[in-house]
């Protein structure tokens, strides 16, 4: 059966070039980048080569690039590394759980935390952030692109607000990196988190931009790796893979790939919206090129996800709870959707390698599946739809 993977916001496959770049660093060039000998030096060279690419990507100095294990660690580091009892922390209610759970944790430890809600279209109004600022505001954290809706947040405006308030600004760019023009100077942030596996690199590795002079306490302590900001032997193959993935991401931002993905996304979106009783969550807001989040009235989203999977279309709906069952998306609920509407919403997020044939398959399968579900349980309307 033809399978079309429309869940790129969950994770992406390695591009072949990334796999190739990593290949020597498992067996031949296996050295520890901290070792004095030549094996160590080869490994060090690989790590610093990747750091150079990351610095070009972030638009920062090489010394301001810190490697880590990925998005969750980056988000946690920003929050636990800067906030102490008595500080004020402003973030939004549509952040990833790596930010939300860390925020709850520091709140228990005496940090005053404010969650700014989005507008109905999923956009955070920068003025709401400005209104939340108090003299003791130490950190503002906001995502670049929302993982569920793809809505691009006004990071530049918030960067200015942070600068005026004398607060640090962290951007969770896990979903935005590789999808939009990227420049931490323009964003006005002090910290910026990215993850390799969302951009065709390997899982378990990421990086963080840490502006020089930011007093970030390390989350992981031990050896003096990463300028004492993050202990632990460098994940050399992972870092090399991240470097290659970021290099390729910069290329696809310039060679028209994103425009092509946007056209495919728009085609799929228009095709699905032709089904009665559908709508886009985040409509009217600027969105990442690969993502659309569509609500289907009178459909149980969880069943639709499974039905589509069995017909060869992999999408996601809501977030997985402890058991792997789905819970309604906190992002959509924050945008004002009720539980049923949030449950009946599905995210389609395309790979940058998606083709017209993929879109054809999606548009063959989805309308059929929706019609089938609606025909089965018309009574679902208003109860579980």
């Amino acid at each position, binding site marked *: 059966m033809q399978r079309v993977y429309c869940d790129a916001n969950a994770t992406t496959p390695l591009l072949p070039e990334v796999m190739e770049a990593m290949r020597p660093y498992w067996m031949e060039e296996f050295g520890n980048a901290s070792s004095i000998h030549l094996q160590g030096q080869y490994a060090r060279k690989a790590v610093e080569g990747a750091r150079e690419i990351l610095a070009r990507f972030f638009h920062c100095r090489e010394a301001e690039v810190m490697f880590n294990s990925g998005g969750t660690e980056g988000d946690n580091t920003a929050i636990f590394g800067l906030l102490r009892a008595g500080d004020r922390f402003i973030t939004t209610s549509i952040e990833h759980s790596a930010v939300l759970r860390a925020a709850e944790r520091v709140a228990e430890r005496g940090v005053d935390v404010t969650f700014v809600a989005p507008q109905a279209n999923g956009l955070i109004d920068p003025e709401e952030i400005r209104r939340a600022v108090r003299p003791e505001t130490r950190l503002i954290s906001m995502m670049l692109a929302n993982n569920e809706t793809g809505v691009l947040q006004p990071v530049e405006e918030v960067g200015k607000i942070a600068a005026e308030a004398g607060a640090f600004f962290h951007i969770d760019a896990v979903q935005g990196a590789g999808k939009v023009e990227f420049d931490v100077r323009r964003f006005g942030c002090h910290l910026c988190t990215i993850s390799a596996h969302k951009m065709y690199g390997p899982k378990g590795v990421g990086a963080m931009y840490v502006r020089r002079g930011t007093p970030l306490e390390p989350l992981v302590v031990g050896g003096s790796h990463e300028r004492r900001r993050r202990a632990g032997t460098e994940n050399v193959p992972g870092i090399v893979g991240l470097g290659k993935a970021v290099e390729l991401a910069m290329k696809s931002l310039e060679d028209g790939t994103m425009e092509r993905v946007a056209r495919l996304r728009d085609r799929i979106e228009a095709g699905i919206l032709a089904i009665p009783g559908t709508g886009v969550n985040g409509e009217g807001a600027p969105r990442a090129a690969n993502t659309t989040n569509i609500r289907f009235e009178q459909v149980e989203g969880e069943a639709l996800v*499974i039905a589509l999977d069995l017909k060869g279309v992999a999408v996601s709906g809501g977030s997985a709870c*402890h058991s*792997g069952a789905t819970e309604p998306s906190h992002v959509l609920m924050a945008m004002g959707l009720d539980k049923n509407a949030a449950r009946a919403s599905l995210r389609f997020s395309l790979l940058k390698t998606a083709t017209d044939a993929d879109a054809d398959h999606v548009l063959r399968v989805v309308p059929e599946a929706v019609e089938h579900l609606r025909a089965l349980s018309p009574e679902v309307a208003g109860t579980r739809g």
Partner: protein
Amino acid sequence: MKQDTTIAVAMSGGVDSSTAAAILARSGETVVGLTLQLWDQTRLAGRHGIPDAPKAGRCCSLDDVYDARRVAEHLGIPYYVVNQEERFERDVVRPFVAEYLAGRTPIPCSLCNNHLKFDQLLKTARSIGAERIATGHYAVNEYDEKRSRWILKRPADLAKDQTYFLFGLTQEQLAHTVFPLGHMTKPEVREAARQHGLKLAGKPDSQEICFIPGGDYKRFLTAYLEEQGEAMPETAGELVTANGAVVGRHEGIFSFTVGQRKGLGGTGRPSGPSPLYVLNIDPASHRVTVGADAELASRTLRARQLNWIGIAELTGSMRVRVKIRHRHEPAWATLEPAGADEVLATFDEPQRAVTPGQAAVFYDGDEVVGGGWIV
């Protein structure tokens, strides 16, 4: 009978449903595994002594979902967890709590099978393109041409017979359900599990009600009502004998079940040589009637909310055997209609502790004629 349709197997992570899935998958059927996530086992953790980490062997515990997922991976079948927590709370937990507070003794498993599990499984199965469902219950269903009805029969392993909990199945549900274990004994099932390479072949059976840790109803009620911000209703009252003499007081009717041996709670404990048993609970007056074991026996019972399986309807009197609780040996009785949606069963021999809230299931030989809820 291999059909060219997909079967959705309800997988709990236990030996029975895992083996059912294995048998179907290995016989060449197209199988999809489903687990209904019904109750978050950590939800009431820490309240009133409810343990923080639920043990395995209870549905919806993380360990059991893990086991079910590993079995599906082993069999190479797709597997999904479907969130039905809200519906479970509405259709099973809430009615259970209401019944209990009203002094009756409900069986959540039957509530669940009747009002949620089979209905929801079939609904979910159809939504995902499966025409039939399968479960690991020990029961047999067959189509009887003569009567043009689907019938439900006791399984090969009478010790594991679960037909008592399945009396609410509709013809539609029976027509689309497969019970792969109906003709097997439990040891045969464990052996089949081993032969199919299932690592959990030796996993102990779960005995508990899935959402009530340790089977402590009262602790669950207290914790649940507290979480809901609802007060435990005041139902303290008198302990009386069958002829109306007040012999003491009790602290709430929900502590009692008909047939229970008295001796817990209550003040002004009646003294006497012979042990006392709960004979009756009156939710209106909060009065709990107690008496000697012999007084527990009833010659009749009435049941409502009936479901008929082997027959379309009860039109006259019928000789059946009636099972009044899970471990009860069905007893001979004459069944007759007693108004709309009510029957009267008259036992040949008086039966001990006929308990309102429990199910009465009527058998004709191995066949389930139907059943209802004791009133």
